[in-house]
């Protein structure tokens, strides 16, 4: 019998140790490579185990079959998945889709979907951005038009994570008043054209969705037009924090494995880990990883208690942690020397994932601009 990973009085570090123990066995580099070469790029076997262990339901209230923990614990799972380069729909299904239901789902929506997310049965996703994967509201390339008791959706969605696996996708669409609606659609519906958008990072899958006058019942909406944009913004923050968590986990692992590699690598009669120039650069990597860790922790905590500073904390965690991951992954590859350039070593997988994380859901310029607007007030003339 499998025991759920989390018990009530486990602290974050115990939780982390328990998760890492599982992933060190079940998400080895060999396994990651098998999964990433499959078209779905989703480790269904691991996902089932994660569900069984209660990871998928960790932040879902007990009444919906979850453990009732907070985003902080969920963040630990995300960090560890990032650390092991796991390919799965976890972020799409649990964080984005599950998070949306928790933030704004009606009771009937929660009741029908949350238990299935918790038990790993429902894979779903959310499409929050617009053309070219941009995040500002003006970029939304899907429009929604109320038509009696129905809604008509037209346009396209790009870079929708794990959409090809999903039963449901929550899509952000521009309403007739320039407002925003979040609507549940079935991506497998024949009126929706779905095509893969493969990326350099082989551990991730995205799709483009195109629809023309796709009609869904009005009940498919999450929230309403009045709070749609605010909700979309919260979900972008949530997704940003998830990416920051993934990045932090990945950066920590790159640092560890780079140092381990260096210790075992001899050149000029000594371990290359004894070379001062490299040691100093490793300290810089570590400082960025440490600072990412506290930044992500702060964002998780602020978001989970809906604190006033959550939007700033989310954006800061996103750009700081993602930028740091790119830095650490670049350095890690360089310090591996020749083998770092091979497909066989994982260096490139981390670097590609780092670059993708940085680009997804608002790049670093976008999040810095957002922080500046929130902290300094908008620039009066730009």
């Amino acid at each position, binding site marked *: 019998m499998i025991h759920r990973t989390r018990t009530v009085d486990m602290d974050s570090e115990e939780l982390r140790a328990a998760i890492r123990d599982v992933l060190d066995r079940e998400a080895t580099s060999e396994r990651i490579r098998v999964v990433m070469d499959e078209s779905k790029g989703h480790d269904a076997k691991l996902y089932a185990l994660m569900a069984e262990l209660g990871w998928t339901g960790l932040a879902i209230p007990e009444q919906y079959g979850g453990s009732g923990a907070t985003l902080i614990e969920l963040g630990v799972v995300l960090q560890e998945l990032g650390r092991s380069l796991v390919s799965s729909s976890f972020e799409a299904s649990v964080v984005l889709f599950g998070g949306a239901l928790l933030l704004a789902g009606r009771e009937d929506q929660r009741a029908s979907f949350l238990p299935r997310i918790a038990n790993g049965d429902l894979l779903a996703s959310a499409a929050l951005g617009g053309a070219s994967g941009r995040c500002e509201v003006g970029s939304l390339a899907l429009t929604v038009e109320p038509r009696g008791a129905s809604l008509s959706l037209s346009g396209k969605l790009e870079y929708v994570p794990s959409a090809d696996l999903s039963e449901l996708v929550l899509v952000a669409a521009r309403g007739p008043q320039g407002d925003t609606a979040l609507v549940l659609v079935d991506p497998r519906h024949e009126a929706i054209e779905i095509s893969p958008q493969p990326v350099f990072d082989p551990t991730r899958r995205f799709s483009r969705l195109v629809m023309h006058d796709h009609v869904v019942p009005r009940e498919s909406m999450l929230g309403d037009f009045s709070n749609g944009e605010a909700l979309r913004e919260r979900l972008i923050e949530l997704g940003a924090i998830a990416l920051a968590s993934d990045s932090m986990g990945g950066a920590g692992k790159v640092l560890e494995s780079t*140092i381990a590699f260096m210790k075992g690598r001899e050149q000029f009669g000594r371990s290359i880990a004894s070379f*001062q120039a490299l040691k100093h650069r490793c300290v810089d990597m570590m400082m960025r990883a440490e600072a990412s860790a506290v930044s992500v*922790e*702060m964002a998780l905590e602020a978001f989970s208690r809906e604190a006033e500073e959550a939007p700033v*904390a989310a954006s800061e965690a996103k750009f700081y942690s993602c930028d740091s991951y790119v830095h650490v992954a670049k350095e890690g590859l360089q310090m591996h020397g020749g083998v770092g350039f091979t497909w066989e070593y994982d260096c490139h997988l981390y670097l590609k994932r780092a670059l993708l994380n940085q680009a997804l859901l608002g790049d670093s310029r976008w999040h*810095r601009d957002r922080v*500046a607007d929130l902290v300094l007030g908008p620039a009066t003339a730009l």
Partner: protein
Amino acid sequence: MIAELEALAGFRADVREWCREHVPADWVARMTGASVDESLEFQRVWLAELREGGLAAPHWSSEWTGRDYSFEEEIVIAEEMARARAPRLDTFFVSLYHTYGLLMEAGTEAQRRRHLPAILDHGEIWCQGFSEPNAGSDLASLRTRAQRRGDVYVVNGQKVWSTYAMHARFCLLLARTDPAARKNRGISYFLLDMRTPGVEVRPIVDLGRRQEFCELFLVDVEIPVENRIGEENEGWRIANSTLSTERSTLLLMPAEQLRVAYWMLVDLARTTPGSGGRPAIEDVGVRRDLAGFHAEIANLRLLINRMLTQMIRAGGAGPESSIIKLYYSELLQRFTCYAAQLGGMKTQELAPLLGAAPYVSGVWEFDFLNSYTWTISAGTNEIQRNIISERVLGMPREPK
């Protein structure tokens, strides 16, 4: 942020109130460009003020202060002092931290009774005699000799970077008692009375043209045996074990000051014309840089909180304080350099300096130059990186 501090809201309010009443509103204006004597006098007055409020040495035990603060309360005091932009007690830094730490850990009861009240009640100033001209970061290679002759040690040698030694009544001195022993094995620790014949102090002029550091020249200086701390040749071990104590809250104040300084930088950006003539704060590039500093300053405080939380819960600081010192000092340097550059020709103008200033005074070019005290002294950042890579990351030492 630190859960344990939430219960101290009442205490915090008291400290804040005390600061509101006692931190002189005009001290920055008054002390800017002040003479050495004026600064010294101001430090003494401020020490007395803090002592009356029971806030001069919150880390000291109640035996000496009559107050018994918890570690959590110490954190609150440091936070509130920073928030109130209170003057630093930098003239008494060695006295309050190093001398106290040393005597409590390795001193005799008689030494404590002689020196601790003198520091707190009469503002006795101490200095450090550790560094030498040819032993900068490589402290263990120091050459100052102390030879036992009967009841005294006769000391000859030269020390450097001894802060405020020209004002100091006593000095914490490391000297070599066994030249035959391996580098760090033959060193002993002494308390030196600065009025002993043969002690000469020469101030060093620093890059801001201030005189805070000194050279000490010691010629046949006699130190009574009872002023040795611990056993002969045990000085290195004692110095190392006492150096690391009491460091944890020391970074809190500069970190809090950096949060205050952030808004000074924002003000600078509001009042400085940017590249196109409009205020710099409307420049997208500047705004992104300001967002970056906002995040990094938040991270600094979070790193410190993490360390303090661990100390509250588990006791004892690990190598975190080295990491934080590195992070802080480089952030401070980049931050102040950025401000000096952002302000354009205006910040190039020479301005009178402020004694006992926060590490960011708003005289940006000076603040930037001054930031090198953090990256160079007490072990350069290069040495810190060596230490962290070996002790934290477990990387091997370089071959000798």
